[in-house]
C-alpha cells in the first residue's frame, strides 16, 4: 500500500493523545492529590490539541471534506464511521474532563473513566479500520489493534513524562519508567507483527487471481501504460533500500532512542518516538501487500 500521509499523522497524533489521556487519568487516580494545580487541565488541553491536529490531518485524506459529516452515518457496519464518531466523542469527553478540572466541577475521575473507555474504543476503531480489511493479511490480525493501543499508550506516556518534566517534575521518574515499560512492550508486540508480516504467505496468488492453474504466468500488459489509480494507490514505489531504511528508522525512533532517552531527556525521547512512529506507520502501509497488486505486476 502507498502510505497516506494524512493517515500517518492522524493515527500517530490521536494515538499519542489517547495515550496521554489514559496516563493523565492514572496520574489522577493514583496520585491525584499531590498533582500540581492545572497539571491535568494542561494535559487535557494537550490531548485536545493533538486530537484536533489529527482530525484536521484526516480531512486532507478526503476527496470531499465538506461531506465529512456523512462519514458517521454507517456506524452499524463501517469501522471508519465508528472512528468518525469515536474521535469527536472522545474529544468531547476530554473537553468535559478539562472543563470539570478548570471549573472545579468535580466528578473528574468519573469523567476520566468514560474518557479512558472512549480512548480505548477509539483505539479499537482505528485499529479495526485496518484489521477489518480481510484481504490485507498484514493488517487483518488482532496485533494491529494491540499495536495501535500499545504504541499509542507508549508515545502518550513518553509525552506525559516530557510534559511532567515541565509541569510536574515529581512525576517524571515514575512516568518515564511507565513509558519505558510500555515502549518495551510495544517493541515486543510490533516485533511480533513485523516477524509475522515478513513470513506471511499470501493466500491469493496470480493463479487464483486470474483462475489459471499454471506455475509460470507473467503479466505483460495492464491495458494502461500511463498508469492508473490502481498502480498509484497500492504501491509505495520506493526501493527496497529505502524501505529497509524506514525499518531502521522505525526501530531506532520508536523504540531504541526513546528507551535510551526517556529516563533522562523525556522531551527528546518523545520527539524521537513520534518521528519513529511516523516511520512505523509508513512501514505499516508499505508492508501491506494488497492482493490487487497481483493484477498490476507487468506492463508493455
Amino acid at each position, binding site marked *: 500500500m502507498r502510505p497516506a500521509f494524512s493517515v500517518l499523522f492522524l493515527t500517530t497524533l490521536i494515538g499519542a493523545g489517547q495515550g496521554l489521556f489514559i496516563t493523565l487519568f492514572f496520574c489522577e487516580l493514583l496520585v491525584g492529590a499531590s498533582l500540581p494545580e492545572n497539571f491535568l487541565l494542561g494535559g487535557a488541553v494537550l490531548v485536545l490539541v493533538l486530537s484536533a491536529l489529527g482530525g484536521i490531518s484526516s480531512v486532507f485524506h478526503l476527496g470531499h471534506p465538506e461531506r465529512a459529516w*456523512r*462519514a458517521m452515518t454507517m456506524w452499524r*457496519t*463501517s469501522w471508519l464511521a465508528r472512528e468518525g464518531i469515536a474521535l469527536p466523542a472522545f474529544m468531547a469527553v476530554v473537553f468535559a474532563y478539562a472543563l470539570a478540572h478548570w471549573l472545579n466541577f468535580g466528578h473528574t475521575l468519573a469523567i476520566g473513566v468514560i474518557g479512558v473507555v472512549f480512548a480505548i474504543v477509539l483505539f479499537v476503531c482505528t485499529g479495526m479500520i485496518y484489521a477489518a480489511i*480481510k484481504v490485507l493479511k498484514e493488517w487483518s490480525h488482532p496485533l494491529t489493534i494491540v499495536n495501535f493501543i500499545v504504541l499509542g499508550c507508549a508515545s502518550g506516556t513518553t509525552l506525559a513524562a516530557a510534559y511532567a518534566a515541565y509541569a510536574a517534575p515529581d512525576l517524571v521518574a515514575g512516568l518515564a519508567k511507565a513509558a519505558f515499560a510500555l515502549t518495551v512492550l510495544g517493541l515486543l508486540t510490533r516485533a511480533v507483527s513485523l516477524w509475522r508480516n515478513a513470513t506471511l504467505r499470501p493466500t491469493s496468488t496470480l493463479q487464483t487471481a486470474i*483462475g489459471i492453474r499454471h506455475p509460470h504466468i507473467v*503479466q*505483460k500488459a495492464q491495458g494502461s501504460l500511463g498508469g492508473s489509480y490502481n498502480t498509484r494507490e497500492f504501491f509505495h514505489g520506493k526501493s527496497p533500500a529505502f524501505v529497509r531504511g524506514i525499518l531502521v528508522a522505525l526501530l531506532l525512533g520508536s523504540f531504541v532512542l526513546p528507551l535510551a532517552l526517556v529516563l533522562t531527556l523525556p522531551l527528546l525521547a518523545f520527539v524521537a518516538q513520534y518521528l519513529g512512529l511516523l516511520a512505523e506507520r509508513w512501514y505499516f502501509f508499505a508492508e501491506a501487500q494488497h492482493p490487487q497488486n497481483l493484477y498490476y505486476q507487468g506492463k508493455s
Partner: protein
Amino acid sequence: MTQLALVIDLNVCVGCHACVTNCKQWNTSGAAGALTDCNPYEQDPNGTFFNRVQTFEVGAYPATETVHFPKSCLHCEDPACVPVCPTGASYKRKSDGIVLVDYDKCIGCKYCSWACPYGVREFDEERKVMTKCTLCVDRIYDMSLPEERRKPSCVLACPPGARLFGDVHDPESEVSVAIRERGGYTLMPEANTKPANHYLPRRKTTVTVRNEELYRSDNPHKIDGAPFDETLPPATEELN
C-alpha cells in the same frame, strides 16, 4: 432475487479493448460521468476507466498461451467494498445486485478500494470520488431502447462475443447455462466475496489423425498412380 453479472469468455477474448473504450464513451456522458482523463495530451496519460483488458503469458516457449483478461467490478454477492464505506455511498442494489457508488455521498476516502481485493475501483482524480463499473445501469433499464440493446455497452461492443450479460441467479439464463456447461469460475474465491461475474476458461479443440485413416479405398492415387513412391500403401478398408 436477481443478480445481474457479466460472464467473460477467455476462450474467445482476443484482447481488442473494444469493451474498454466503449464502456468509457457510454459512461463518460452517462449518469456516471464525466470520467476524467489526466494528462490527456501529455506525458503519462491516465484516466478513469471502469474496465481494462490485461494480458498474461502462461507457460514457457513454445508452449505459451497469451491470455487476454478483461477485468471490471465483479458485483460480488458479498462485496467487501460495501460494509466498509462510512457514508453508505458504496451500496449494493437489492433489486438486481448491482454494486454502485453514490457520487453525491462519496467523501473520497478510498477505503472501499482498499477493501476490494480485485483492484477494480478507480478514484476519479478530478471529481474526487470513487468510481466503478455500473453494469450500465442507466442503459439496461432504458425502455426507449430495443430490448436486445438493453445491455452494458461493453457487451454490445464485444466483437467476438466474449461477454455475456444476465441474471446468474436464474438457472435458465444464458449466463447461468454458460457457467454451468463451460466451467465458469470466479476470481480469488479465497477472498469469500462471491463475485457475481464469472469467467469461462480456455478450451482446446484437437484433431487426432490415426495413421490408418490416411488411406481410403477412394484415394485418388488409385486413379492417378502414386506420385512419389512406386507402391501404393493399402487403404484403411484393405487393412481391416
